[in-house]
């Protein structure tokens, strides 16, 4: 593309008072020989924008560089359409708002920012979205319980064809087993009739939904918008072309045979809450074994839950379910004695009214651990428990029946575990492999593994801190109790949310745009395969399984699976991967555009590679709060720290820059990295760099990584100034001036 660049400098928001605008303009006009360079006191106002638009229309400007506020604001104002290249140089939040006005160093900072932006604009090409062949807008829902049915109906209501696949012969899932369901409407104190039959009817009658029962997914190949799904039904294979997938295969009760310490399997009258529900459904609530009518009952909550030996987590619904079941017994027998032994009673929101009702019915609630269960001659159970509220150990008289309220385990947790390993054996520090369990639910034809990665308890991963509805596989969304333990109401909401995400994916993929989080990004990685050495780093390190492999280990990219983070770009040692508007040489030239003063000027330089998701906002926030830090810093925004190519470190240091700071999102258990792995990968790669640096007699301490979230802006001065201090101790980069 033949570029005609226009540079527009805003002098509003104090910029004009803090900087020498004329000198700044010279960077554009004299150094870069930019044909159009204008300033305006209020660039984001109607007049300022009109000026730019007029230049585009009349002067043929097709590359606009705006020096002013952060690119995170006014993006709606500075929108010139898809055929204009737009680059924003941040001289407000990251320069004048945290550095002294009319100061030489502040001026140098602003000028370098403009230089880097001009260098970057020089590299940007307008991306054209990827359009696959035969892309469809059909949604596949795997699992025909309440969640799956709801997702299918919601998708169909929004106008999208849906395919619903259910393993068992009937739809309805867990709800089919209930006698009554927990209250969903006022006064919230009475269980309701189960309404799943109505929902099943609705979904079966909907012309836009194709239902396959007694069917399983044999394989899902392809990518969002272009999935090829093989469904096996009664020995026959059916093919469907699918746009996006909702995983709604639900959860199953925890195996009570592991709860012998609570009497299960040992005593005849200790049963699970599922068994109790069945008893109620079948009519009179009587004891198994001797058929005696139940006059007294004890519900043991958290049976095998919140317990390091069993399920460490809370399953969210068991308290409500037991309270509901207590009402069954009271309806049948108003004089029945009811005990509820618990760690807490978790009845959020309106469920509190159910709790109050059961209290008013006279149930005895005991908070504390059950320390022992024994049986008497009549096969009644005597329970001993610590009663926290009186500080004593109490013992009950014999109760007729004990019900263990067990938790739920997602269907994704069953199967052989495959740890996706990095196959670069020489490295000692490997990034954490994803845990993939062969649960035979989706059977993805992905190099990374056949199912979605799971979190520590076997639940399909969602980016729970920032994006609970997202997963690590673009276009595949988990909903309902397969994602997290939840009640019916939440499952319905979850299903609706997942359907919406599925629709979002389909529509954006059709446009060639990234789905999440870089919505609207039409770029996608291209591979210069002639230089590929089949090292497999890109295929392994991609957090989203976007890159398959052929049998010779050549990478096979799937653009619609891609999230455009650039982690593959950073991983590739041969640097064969690039985006139209983001590449290794582009950043390299930005680094080269920085002016590095001579050693005797005693003005060190620090380059900060800052990820756009948490680090850039954090730096902006520091500016908004007018926190000040040293002016040696030069910020280069990157999509993800994982897209860091190690050659940038070499470029930076050989330019004489004294220090390099990698500023990125938090990784670890409660990770916030928007691309899951990027921040962690950067840290791993850094450790490999240390050795190289030491060999070059460059202190490895010159390269540092810090993790921040947007809320950590108050730490920015400390981080940046602290680094500057250390660099002062180390002395200037010996390569300065070379």
């Amino acid at each position, binding site marked *: 593309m033949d570029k005609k660049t226009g540079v527009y400098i805003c002098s509003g928001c104090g910029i004009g008072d803090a900087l020498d605008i004329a000198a700044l303009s010279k960077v554009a006009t004299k150094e870069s020989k930019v044909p159009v360079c204008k300033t305006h006191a209020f660039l984001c106002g109607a007049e300022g924008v009109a000026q730019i638009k007029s230049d585009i229309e009349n002067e043929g400007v097709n590359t606009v560089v705006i020096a002013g506020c952060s690119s995170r604001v006014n993006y709606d104002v500075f929108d010139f359409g898809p055929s204009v290249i737009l680059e924003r140089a941040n001289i407000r939040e990251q320069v004048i708002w945290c550095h002294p006005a009319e100061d030489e160093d502040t001026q140098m900072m602003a000028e370098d920012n403009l230089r880097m932006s001009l260098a970057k604009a020089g590299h940007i090409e307008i991306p054209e979205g990827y359009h696959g062949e035969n892309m469809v807008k059909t949604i596949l829902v795997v699992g025909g319980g309440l969640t799956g049915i709801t997702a299918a109906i919601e998708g169909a209501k929004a106008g999208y064809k849906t395919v619903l696949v259910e393993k068992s012969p009937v739809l309805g899932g867990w709800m089919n087993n209930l006698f009554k369901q927990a209250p969903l409407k006022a006064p919230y104190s009475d269980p309701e009739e189960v309404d799943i039959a109505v929902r099943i009817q609705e979904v079966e009658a909907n012309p836009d939904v194709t239902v396959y029962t007694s069917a399983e997914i044999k394989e899902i190949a392809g990518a969002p918008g272009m999935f090829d799904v093989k469904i096996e039904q009664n020995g026959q294979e059916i093919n469907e072309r699918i746009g996006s997938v909702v995983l709604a295969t639900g959860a199953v009760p925890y195996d009570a045979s592991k709860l012998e310490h609570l009497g299960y399997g040992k005593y005849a009258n200790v049963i699970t809450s599922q068994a109790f529900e069945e008893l109620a459904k079948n009519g009179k609530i009587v004891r198994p074994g001797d058929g005696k009518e139940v006059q007294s009952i004890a519900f043991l909550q958290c049976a095998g839950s919140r317990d390091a030996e069993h399920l460490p987590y809370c399953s969210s619904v068991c308290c409500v379910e037991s309270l509901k079941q207590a009402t069954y017994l009271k309806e049948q027998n108003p004089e029945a*004695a009811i005990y509820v032994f618990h760690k807490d*009673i978790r009845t959020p929101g309106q469920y509190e009214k159910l*709790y*109050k009702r059961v*209290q*008013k*019915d*006279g*149930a*005895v*609630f*005991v*908070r504390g651990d059950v320390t022992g269960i024994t049986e008497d001659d009549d096969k009644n159970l005597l329970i*001993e428990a610590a*009663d926290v*509220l*009186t500080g*004593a*150990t*109490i*013992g*009950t*008289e014999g109760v007729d029946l004990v019900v263990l309220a067990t938790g739920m385990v997602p269907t994704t947790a069953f199967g052989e575990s495959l740890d996706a390993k990095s196959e670069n054996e020489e490295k000692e520090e490997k990034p954490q492999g994803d845990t993939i369990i062969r649960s035979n639910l989706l059977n993805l034809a992905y190099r990374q593994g056949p199912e979605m990665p799971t979190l520590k308890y076997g639940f399909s991963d969602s980016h729970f801190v920032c994006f609970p509805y997202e997963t690590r596989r673009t276009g595949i969304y988990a909903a309902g109790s397969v994602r997290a333990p939840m009640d019916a109401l939440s499952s319905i909401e979850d299903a609706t949310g997942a359907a919406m995400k599925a629709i979002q994916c389909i529509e954006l993929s059709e446009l060639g745009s990234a789905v999440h989080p870089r919505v609207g990004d039409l770029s996608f990685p291209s591979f210069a395969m002639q230089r590929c050495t089949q090292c497999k780093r890109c295929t392994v390190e991609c957090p989203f399984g976007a890159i398959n492999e052929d049998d010779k280990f050549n990478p096979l990219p799937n653009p619609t699976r891609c999230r455009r983070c650039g982690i593959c770009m950073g991983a590739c040692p041969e640097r064969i991967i690039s985006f139209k508007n983001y590449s290794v040489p582009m950043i390299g030239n930005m680094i080269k555009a920085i002016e590095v003063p001579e050693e005797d000027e005693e003005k060190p330089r620090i380059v900060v590679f800052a990820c756009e998701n948490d680090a850039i906002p954090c730096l902006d926030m520091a500016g908004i709060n007018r926190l000040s830090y040293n002016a040696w810093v030069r910020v280069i925004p990157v999509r993800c720290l994982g897209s860091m190519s190690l050659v940038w470190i070499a470029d930076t240091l050989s330019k004489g820059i004294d220090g390099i700071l990698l500023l990125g999102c938090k990784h670890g258990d409660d990770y916030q990295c928007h691309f899951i792995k990027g921040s962690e990968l950067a840290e791993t790669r850094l450790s490999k760099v240390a050795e190289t640096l030491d060999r070059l007699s460059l202190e490895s301490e010159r390269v540092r990584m810090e993790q921040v979230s947007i809320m950590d802006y108050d730490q920015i001065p400390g981080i940046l100034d602290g680094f500057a201090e250390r660099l002062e101790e180390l002395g200037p980069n010996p390569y300065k001036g070379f």
Partner: protein
Amino acid sequence: MEEIKSVSLEMKDYIVSSGAETLSWCMQCGLCTNLCPWRLVPGEVSEAFNIRKMQRLGQLGLEGFEDEEILFACATCGMCQSNCPRKVEIINNVRSMRNTTVGAGFLPAHLRPIAGSIHANGNPWSGEKEKRAEWQEGLDIPAFSEDTEYLLYVCCTSCYDTRSKKIAKSIVSLLKEAGVSFGVLTAEENCCGETIRKLGDEELFQKLAESNIKLFNSKGVKKIITTSPHCLYAFKKDYPDYGGEYEVVHYSEVLSKLMKEGKLTFKGEVGKKVTFHDPCYLGRHNEVYDAPRELIQAIPGVEFVELERNKSKSLCCAGGGGRVWAEVPMGQRFGELRITDAVEKQADVLVTACPYCILMLDDACAGLEKNDVLEVMEMSELLCSASKP
């Protein structure tokens, strides 16, 4: 090996059937214990008495709640139940728990003479029944008849206790001045029974209620003015259980209304700093907060200040629930804290409108030796002192 305590649902049912219907509503949040005025004083009772734990022992039918110290420590001030998130009727539960032992014939030793006196003399002060109306001598108070609007019911304390008799007299004088149509039946009355019911003697309370109701109904009583907020509570909230339905008001409510209508004016000046202690039974239990304040603030020259803990947060004087007859060492009575509150505000006069509060606060003021800086007055006495220039 820790001793295992056996849960007894039978015992729990026994407590519930004695009147603690809301016992199972309690979710053991503990707010009650933290609001209880016992937390503000040191001592054995304070350390033993934990209202949340007491309710819990009742819920499980475990022994321990009936320890004399615990069972009879509650002053029924209502701070707990007016804030309970589950709206548990905590005082009713305490009353029912007391009934389980008192109903079987067991009252703590210091309370036996009180119950005995009520049985024999119709009042808890061992005063002779025949002398109940003696305080009326020379006052020309009309007897209640069909033409009288209100029955004036005077608390036993003000019928027999020398200091308290002055309250009855000043209230009568104010009612007359305001032109209220009222009459008395004092000589034939018995104690309203509010406190003995709180102590758990339901049988004795029933006896009193039935006799009073029979008397009132036979005379055609429809409206009652009480001198004590405790009697107000009894007639308004307890008597309907036994068939007594009356319109009941505290004297402050009547006087305040008439004052606003111009029928009662204060011509005399009282140039003092006055503060008001809300009695638990007037404030929290019957929600009368404004009437006393309106009256006090209508007195010319009065500089009215509010205590820190006022209105619904008022700190109990420790007289309710039978505590007025308990022996409590100095330093452990929360009534003393009230005197300190008033002195802190540099008030000249601490006014209240309940005969039990007067007893407790008088005692505390003397015990703390603050009589030279603070005067404790019943409201009617203050109002009377201002009615003439």
